[in-house]
């Protein structure tokens, strides 16, 4: 299938390997991603903390650009925070005509208009519900057999919008991981918060929360993530070495793609235990 692609700012910087591996994975799966032309920041955590109106206008601009492509394609978002901002704006604009009119007066400045018709979907939603599991199973030849993987979902792809998984006991990654031949770690930290952006300004919070999560992942060979903020925190606050990889990196490797093509040199954690599994 084809999708419009909204990478978001982190994927141009500290989460570059998430961007690289997303694009490479979808290519390997035979899907096409079209980057939304001229996209800008969704407002991140900052806009909703200082300016409620801009926190709608900023994502709305990107929704308008997606609609302008006139493709009718779903918007695929790999970053959970971007996903929530775009999705929330989409819902609020759809339900509130007065707000939409107000926002459109601002967007007119850029020659844009939004009608909130586009569907916003998280990467994990797309991977688990559009048939990727079967294709991964076919192509992976159980390459990851012997590995135990801890699926880490974080928060904002699961909550507050309950779209594709149980918001407290998520399971959607299980089938994808098993399709590679790997086993899934039975744990209950997959949907527990890593501290998100509070860990940026209050590192002691990140250290404690991440410590609790990684302690439960001791028997896993690696943790897989679907959010640049989670990835950053889980890699940054390690007291002992735990490999943390993005889900598309893991799936790409399972399909036989090279570590280079999945941006595997860019992770902050030591991911050799995963790479040794696929090295020739």
């Amino acid at each position, binding site marked *: 299938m084809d999708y419009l692609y909204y990478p978001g*700012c982190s994927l141009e910087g*500290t989460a570059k390997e998430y961007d690289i591996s997303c694009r490479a994975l979808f290519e390997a799966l035979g899907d096409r991603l079209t980057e939304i032309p001229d996209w800008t*920041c969704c407002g991140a955590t900052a806009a909703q903390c*200082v300016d409620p109106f801009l926190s709608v206008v900023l994502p709305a601009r990107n929704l308008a650009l997606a609609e302008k492509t006139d493709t009718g394609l779903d918007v695929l978002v790999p970053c959970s925070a971007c996903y929530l901002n775009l999705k929330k704006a989409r819902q609020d604009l759809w339900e509130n005509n007065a707000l939409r009119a107000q926002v459109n007066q601002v967007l007119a400045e850029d020659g844009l208009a939004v009608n909130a018709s586009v569907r916003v979907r998280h990467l994990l939603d797309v991977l688990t519900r559009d048939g990727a599991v079967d294709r991964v199973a076919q192509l992976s030849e159980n390459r990851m057999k012997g590995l135990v993987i801890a699926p880490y979902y974080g928060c*904002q792809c699961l909550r507050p919008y309950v779209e594709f998984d149980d918001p407290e006991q998520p399971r959607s990654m299980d089938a994808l991981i098993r399709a590679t031949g790997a086993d899934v770690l039975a744990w209950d930290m997959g949907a527990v*918060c890593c501290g998100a952006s509070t860990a940026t300004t209050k590192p002691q919070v990140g250290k404690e929360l991440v410590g609790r999560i990684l302690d439960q992942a001791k028997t896993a060979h690696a943790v897989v993530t679907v959010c640049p903020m989670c990835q950053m925190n889980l890699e940054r606050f390690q007291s002992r070495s735990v490999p943390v990889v993005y889900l598309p990196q893991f799936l790409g490797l399972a399909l036989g793609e090279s570590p280079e093509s999945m941006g595997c040199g*860019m992770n902050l954690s030591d991911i050799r235990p995963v790479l040794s599994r696929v090295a020739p």
Partner: protein
Amino acid sequence: MHLTDIREKLAARPDLTRQLAQVKEQVATCIQCGTCSSSCPNAGFMDMTPRRMWRAVLMDRVDMVFSSQTFMLCASCYVCTLRCPRGLPLTGAMAELKQVAFGLDLDRFRRSTLFYKAFMDNIRQYGRVRETELMARYFLAVKDPRVPMSYTGMGIKLMAKHKLHPHLPSRGPGRLAPLFDRAKQQER
């Protein structure tokens, strides 16, 4: 912070007073069951539990609310919102308390205020966040060498992975300045 200081500051800002009244309305049917507190991953770091915070909001104890760091520690994980038996939009209400606190420009939240200000300036200027310049601007604004020092280890790791991208700051009106200015007009 004395009670009178915050009350005076609020009195001078009818927009923020109104917003605080909205928060109060949002949590009006709180039954003080404490599900939010027991669900919150950051409750252990808070000087006041979320349950107490909502009670303080309902009792108009603005002095308690804004001398606490509780809402600033909300990581927007949405577990309390999901579990609240009254279905209250608690995560959204926390965000609104942040907005009011930033609007009041209180000294105790100076660092976070500067961080988010640097963030918004970055978006206004470039459209997309340039992480490296954002942090540099934030460090300049805080004017406390201990802050950048505490990020040194992280910076070295990121540099080793070629993830720091110092751009030359560009001048000019800013990529999204027209949009930001128009939004400001619209809000009035």
